[in-house]
């Protein structure tokens, strides 16, 4: 090797000749996602990692080094291995294991009727599917992947999109998490538009206490029924309910703590960074990205509207015992949208505490979206 060879090798090994405008733009988007997470507090656990992944993967040559597959005895890139958790659909159910262990379903058990509000909000999914396909001309798999944004549930969205149309994943995931963070801006106008002042002021009766036995039976019963109808949702609902079972037995505290902390936190880092590393300019800097963001916004709006409208119907039927606002919590985005309901309710009556009542549809929305995902997968996969 001559001296010049070494110098040339050193020069060529730098990344300067590999920077393009697309990459710079994507790095800006990565920085923007981090900014949204850090400065605005928008879903920081996810957006900071996604943004970091976007930023690093668009640095020159980083994509080959981080994501290159193993070849001829040489090991693959670090995130080629870590990313298998996304590609093999292992991470989203593991996140749900932790979510289940963190979720208290008692408001829903105490008032099962609110379950229906969690179903109504799935109009966000199916309405968006219709518009994505019939109006925007996406194909059925693309439409399903975009529609699931309306589920307002990260793991469900990622799981479904990976099965239907993996190349849309980064766009769909970023859109889903962004709108989940924007729930306090998106929902209130729709809620106010669709309800009267009197409806918003309805005070609801206190919830009955729920026994431990009921809390233990709940995950098993729901799991059995959901899987019976939509077997495709098994991994998602199964892990959600395993986590919840570990939480509620009262004798598996160690395991519940593991699901709530070490498992979900580690997986979140790896999942979100992997998703961020799929954000390349070829995938993201496209017209369809704008369409997907528009449709995602629509999905959240339709979901809110669906929930509130069924809430109004329930208010009517019960003679004003149900505050229609709680329907908006059916979109899930737990517990953010329940908080939004609470705050909008207190604008009319500061002594009205809707939070607990909104938690019912809120957690029901998680189950409803998983069922909807099962339906999408059954027909479109």
């Amino acid at each position, binding site marked *: 090797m001559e001296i010049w060879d070494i110098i040339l090798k050193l020069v060529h090994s730098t990344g300067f000749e590999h920077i393009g405008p697309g990459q710079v733009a994507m790095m800006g988007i990565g920085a923007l996602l981090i900014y949204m997470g850090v400065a605005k507090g928008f879903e920081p656990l996810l957006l900071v990692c996604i943004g970091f992944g976007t930023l690093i993967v668009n640095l020159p040559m980083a994509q080959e080094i981080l994501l290159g597959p193993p070849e001829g005895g040489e090991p693959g890139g670090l995130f080629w291995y870590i990313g298998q958790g996304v590609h093999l659909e292992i991470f989203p159910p593991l996140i749900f294991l932790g979510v289940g262990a*963190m979720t208290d379903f008692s*408001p829903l058990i105490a008032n099962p009727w609110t379950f229906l509000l969690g179903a109504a909000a799935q109009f966000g999914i199916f309405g968006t599917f219709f518009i994505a*396909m019939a109006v925007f001309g996406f194909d059925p798999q693309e439409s399903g992947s975009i529609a699931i944004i309306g589920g307002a549930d990260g793991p469900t969205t990622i799981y479904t999109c990976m099965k239907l149309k993996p190349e849309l994943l980064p766009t769909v995931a970023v859109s889903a998490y962004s709108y989940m963070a924007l729930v306090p801006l998106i929902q209130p106008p729709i809620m106010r538009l669709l309800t009267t002042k009197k409806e918003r002021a309805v005070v609801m009766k*206190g919830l009955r*206490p729920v*026994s431990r036995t009921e809390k233990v039976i709940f995950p098993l019963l729901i799991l059995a029924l959901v899987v019976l*109808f939509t077997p495709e949702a098994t991994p998602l609902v199964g892990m959600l309910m395993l986590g919840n079972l570990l939480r509620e037995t009262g004798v598996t505290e160690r395991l519940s703590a593991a699901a709530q902390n070490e498992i979900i936190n580690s997986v979140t880092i790896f999942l979100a960074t992997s998703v961020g590393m799929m954000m390349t300019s070829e995938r993201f800097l496209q017209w369809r990205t704008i369409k997907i963001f528009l449709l995602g916004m629509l999905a959240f709006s339709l979901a809110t509207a669906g929930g509130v409208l069924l809430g109004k119907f329930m208010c009517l039927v019960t003679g004003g015992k149900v505050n229609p606002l709680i329907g908006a919590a059916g979109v899930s985005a737990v517990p953010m949208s329940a908080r939004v309901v609470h705050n909008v309710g207190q604008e009319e009556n500061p002594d009205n505490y809707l939070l*607990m009542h909104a938690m019912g549809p809120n957690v029901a929305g998680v189950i409803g979206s998983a069922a909807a995902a099962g*339906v999408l997968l059954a027909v479109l996969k």
Partner: protein
Amino acid sequence: MSEATFSTTFAFLGMAVVFTIILVLTAAMLVTGYMFKTFLLPGTPTGECRYQPSPMSDPPAEHVAVIAAAIAIHRGAARGEISMLAQEDRGPWSVGSMVLQCHGHLNVLRRTR
């Protein structure tokens, strides 16, 4: 079948299926709940002061919740139930049932960590 027909049909059918599933779930839970209330738990103890501030929980947030609850009860506005949710990141939360001086029934959403 055209794209428009397919998407309309599937949107309707999908929504119908999800509604059916959730209706079944609701029915199942109403039945279970009824059974529990009627046969299995005839005399659930009520009215006892179950609330104990956890030493692991964030003291000020807890405190704020209790004070807010006390004020609300004092005002007579909330008929036995008051709810709070700390403005924390979403995800780890839990429902703690708290009874304040046996005057009412309070639900508190607390951060689990």
